[in-house]
């Protein structure tokens, strides 16, 4: 497991009993309620990845919130991190909701789960503007190319000329979640595949430490409505065609590791001081260059290539909370005297509008 390889996680294995994480909790504590999704649904495997990573990083669940829109994908926050606050909100509106949550409490780690319909169809506007604002959150799109919960209509990420049982042929070109994120200036753009748990976990591991918005476009097959092997959203096609562009090594801040600059590696220092080492796999790509990221994605989409990995990362751009220069203390937890100015202030105000002033 990519993340567990990094020492930060301090997984303690005792002779007897389950492994405990940094804060002494077993993984079972991080589970959610039983899933009601179809057996084999890609979304369930992503839920498991989230459980693993949050447990491995030793985060306290009460510092994490789970937000989602509406859809099978958006149901999943009920199925992981039972100890965290969660909100299964409205179709396409998760990004807007998240913005408010983050402003209210900057000290929460926000994990947003959405679907391709939720994000690319009804929610595309909020998605693009959340990226512009660089709101500090992990934005996961569980992308299966269909509307699962409403029984298999085409979504905006469905393949051109694809045929679905009750839907006929889709003649429209797909929207590419990663390209949309990038053109809106998202500061972390990655693509992965529910069938590649190792990569999903390593990307999640970095995303959770990212300064701004981390967009993960995870191809997550819908076994009930869109798992035909011709579909680019199927397990079969994914396994056949996945091209991994880089692998991730994570080095926590407090470790004394000196980074020697290999040609086949890129190091990125995260906002919290830790380091991410990206080992090139397959083709040459610099994930810190927006131009390179844009070319890579354009090229992949025109040639129907299924590239996965960390496509773009920028740790330098301010996130929304920083732009607003909010108090370190969460606004939601401020004491009353910081919320209401004293009497004399109002007297002064009245005076400026008062007769004779």
């Amino acid at each position, binding site marked *: 497991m990519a993340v567990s390889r990094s020492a930060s996680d301090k997984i303690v294995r005792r002779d007897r009993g389950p492994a405990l994480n940094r804060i002494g909790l077993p993984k079972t504590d991080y589970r959610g*309620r039983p899933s009601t999704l179809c057996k084999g649904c890609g979304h369930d495997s992503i839920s498991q990845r989230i459980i693993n990573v949050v447990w491995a990083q030793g985060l*306290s*669940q*009460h*510092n994490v*919130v789970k*937000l989602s829109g509406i859809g099978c994908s958006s149901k999943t*926050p*009920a199925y992981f*991190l039972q*100890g*965290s*606050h*969660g*909100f*299964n*909100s*409205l179709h396409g*509106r998760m*990004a*807007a*909701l*998240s*913005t*408010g*949550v*983050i*402003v*209210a*409490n900057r000290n*929460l780690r926000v994990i947003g789960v959405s679907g391709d319909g939720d994000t690319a169809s009804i929610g595309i*506007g*909020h998605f693009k*503007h959340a990226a512009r*604002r660089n709101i500090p959150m992990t934005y996961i799109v569980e992308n299966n190319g269909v509307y699962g919960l409403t029984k298999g209509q085409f979504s905006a990420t469905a393949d051109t000329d694809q045929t679905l049982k009750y839907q006929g042929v889709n003649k429209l070109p797909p929207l590419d979640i990663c390209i949309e994120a990038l053109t809106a200036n998202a500061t972390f753009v990655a693509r992965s595949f529910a069938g590649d748990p190792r990569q999903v976990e390593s990307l999640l591991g970095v995303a959770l430490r990212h300064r701004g918005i981390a967009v993960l476009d995870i191809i997550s097959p819908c076994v009930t409505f869109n798992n035909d092997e011709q579909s680019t959203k199927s397990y079969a096609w994914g396994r056949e065609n996945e091209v991994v562009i880089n692998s991730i090594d994570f080095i926590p801040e407090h470790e004394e590791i000196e980074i020697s600059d290999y040609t086949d590696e890129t190091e990125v220092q995260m906002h919290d001081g830790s380091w991410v080492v990206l080992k090139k796999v397959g083709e040459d790509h610099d994930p810190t260059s927006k131009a390179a990221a844009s070319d890579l994605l354009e090229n992949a989409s025109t040639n129907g290539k299924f590239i996965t990995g960390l496509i773009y990362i920028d740790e330098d751009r301010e996130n929304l909370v920083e732009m*607003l*220069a*909010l*108090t370190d*203390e*969460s*606004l*939601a*937890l*401020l004491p*009353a*005297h*910081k*919320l*209401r*100015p004293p*009497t004399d202030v*109002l007297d002064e*105000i*009245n005076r400026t*509008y*008062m*007769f*004779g*002033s």
Partner: protein
Amino acid sequence: MAQLRTGARHVGAAPQPIVNDFALTVATANGTGSQTSNLVLLRTLFNMGVPVTGKNLFPSNIQGMPTWYTIRLSKDGYIARREGKEILVCMNPATAVTDMAEMEAGGIVVHDAIIRPAAIKEGIAYHSLPVKELIKPFNVPTALRTYVGNMAYVGAIAWLVELPLVEIEKALSSQLPGKEKAVQLNLGVIRAAYEHCQTHYEYTCPYRVAAMTGHNEGRILIDGNMAAALGGVFGGVNLVSWYPITPSSSLAEALAATLPQYRLDPDTGRPTFAVVQAEDEIAAIGMAIGAGWAGARGMTATSGPGISLMSEFIGLAYFAEIPVVIWDIQRMGPSTGLPTRTSQGDVLSAYTLGHGDTHHVVLFPGSPKECFEFGHEAFDLAEKFQIPVFVLSDLDLGMNLWISDPLEYPAKKLDRGKILSSHEVDALASAWGRYKDVDGDGIGYRTVPGTPSRWAGYFTRGTGHDENSRYSEDPEIWEKNLERIRRKFNTARDAVPGPVIDTMPGARVGLISMGSNDPAVQEARDRLQAEGFVTDYLRIRALPVNGQVRKFIADHEMTIVIENNADGQLHGILSLETDSCPPRLVSASRCNGLPLTARWIASEVVGFVSR
């Protein structure tokens, strides 16, 4: 105002000279800066102690279209809009003909010399003002000419109604703080115009202004949107997420301007608030609800079209029980309607917004003072009841300057509602359920994200849920949950601002109204009383209503609901809430983009009674 209203007289019935009791309309084109001249006049009068009101009738564009600004002086303290005008300042050739045609005998017209009156009317005095010549000596840059030129009519009015130039200078300085040069330039033009009148007009105007006491002392002159914004400042707002729309933009912009003045963290000097301009109204309300869910105070300000777009999210907040405050500065609907005209057309929408069975708490401020009061109280109500709270103001109250009692410092401390601390929730452990009605008031206890307890977390949803917020399709659970929400709504009836009742001995007819109609209703009652017809008056300050309203209706032979919309929306709601119908409870509603007037209200009342 009670002490002043006694002995009200009807305009026209007054003996010559008519002091502090007339109306003046300035007709210009917008984007010409005439607003400064108008406000200088208004401020001058206010500071002379004259009860005064200014209504700006502006177009929905940025530059060049007709604008009218009406200033009413009323020594008796009536600050409602009034039909007609005694003095017309005619600066806009485009509307000169109709503007002048509207004048009645005894009227006075001051017009730019470039405008030649089409038809000279009997009994009207015309004064031509050579604006162009007057400003020539000041060689003003072309860009500023019309702007400065507008000061000419201030001078002319000053001469006509005898305004002391010192007062005008004071008003000018407070209007253009720190811009001494501009003040002097403008004052120069005003003087020039004043002297021009002295030398060229020999005429004594019947309409006069005289400094007076007894009304404005201790009062403030402020627009409702600014007062509402200050209410937010003192209400502890944390997030203002908004999308621009007339006439609500000035509320959000006032928050953006005042929060940094008054709400920086005393310890760190950093903001304890955020103002975020969203991509649309759906995002605006979504952000505010996100903040409310996370335990902060979130609000948005919008108008009709925004309310429509917010329906789905408001329904979620209603059903998931999340506090949020929505200001609706009403403008004329349906649809885009008239963005710069006032109305009270969103009462029903706001009260029942969202599909399915929903009803919301709606507040109706009737003055800038109440805009401030409800501005902070709305947050307490929203958090106490874990609901969306609407505050319905309108363009007239929100964007015009009103004389108001000063803003009152909140008597109660902030009420954050039923939020469990980590210790409390630890103590309850699995016994706690987000939607359990422990206290019988229908209000559950909530936890906010970040509460350090393994028991604090719960899962919020807009789908059917049980007491523990778990998904459920069980019919009994659904019904039980809706019953509790209804119980909560009924609890709110006596917690929201109650009605204000003003009675007259022997009244058998009751009047009910709300919001910005108050001054007009008060004036109408005085007019009627002067004609020997007494009425009682109940001003609704919030929905849902309580027993007092039912009793008021029961106690009168006939109750007339007066409102500024086409359908009599408040009348409809009250009929259902109090099981009353015509002829016991009748509707007097009108909606043409203008604030209601005492004359219209009085005639409606007389009409109903004489039927």
